[in-house]
């Protein structure tokens, strides 16, 4: 696996069209690896009748709500988890 729990990551700001499972509001956002969920056939291939193989690692990625929305109204501790495929993540080297 490329990532370990606790690693800082950033979601790629890719504009890849079609059936992608990465929501637009998380693209370009920084968070951390919460856990590895497992490996699954790539939905971006499955959706078009392909095998989706090889399977891709899927991670639970955590984000602070205040990093997602500038005007977030809630606690600074409020978080959001999303399940993101490894090929949508890059190591985050910034300081955010």
């Amino acid at each position: 696996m490329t990532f370990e729990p606790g690693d800082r990551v950033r979601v790629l700001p890719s504009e890849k069209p079609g059936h992608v499972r990465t929501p637009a509001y998380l693209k370009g956002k920084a968070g951390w690896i919460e856990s590895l969920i497992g490996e699954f056939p790539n939905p971006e291939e499955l959706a078009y009748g392909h095998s989706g193989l090889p399977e891709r690692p899927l991670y639970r990625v955590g984000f602070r709500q205040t990093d997602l929305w500038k005007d977030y109204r809630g606690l600074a501790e409020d978080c959001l988890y999303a399940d993101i495929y490894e090929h949508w993540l890059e190591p985050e080297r910034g300081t955010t």
Partner: protein
Amino acid sequence: MSDHPHEETGSGRTTSPYAARIRAIEALLLEKGVLTEPEVQDSISYMEARSPANGAKLVARAWVDPDFKEILLADGKAAAKELGMEPEHPAEFEVVENTPEIHNLIVCTLCSCYPRAILGRPPDWYKSFEYRSRAVREPRALMREFGFEPPEGVEVLVHDSTADVRYMVLPMRPPGTEGMNEEELATLVTRDSLVGAGVPRTSVRIG
């Protein structure tokens, strides 16, 4: 028939354009032999055999049996099988626990992913654009409109089920329910509380 305040969430109405489109697609799939009528009926029966009552049973058992709770949180499918449910579905099934520190809220911003193999079809509001966008953008304001506000200091954790995992919330057992048995406890567990949009009732509803 001109006043439909919930037009956006009304995709289940038999007269909606969505229903007409689905009927047309179904007719074509049958005509071309991709699906058969018995397969369609099987699929409908499968979905109708599942309901939030399954979720309520899992929750009530977890409230009275700490060992079961441990299984439910570690392996949701194994726990469901133990209670005679059939969660075989390609997706994973994960149960997240509300605690005095954390309140969980489930959404699928991309479509309407939901643990259908356990709970059946999601409520219409769960599929609405409004719920899907506001659950991630302003979860606290959204929950207030459902009539629930996490107590002060409680962290809100939103789970966007974007891929291969379906989530269900294990709500906290309401105070004052110590004398209730498992069946009575199950009646407290609302569908909304399994998504985190609310919390269980505090007393058994009569009738």
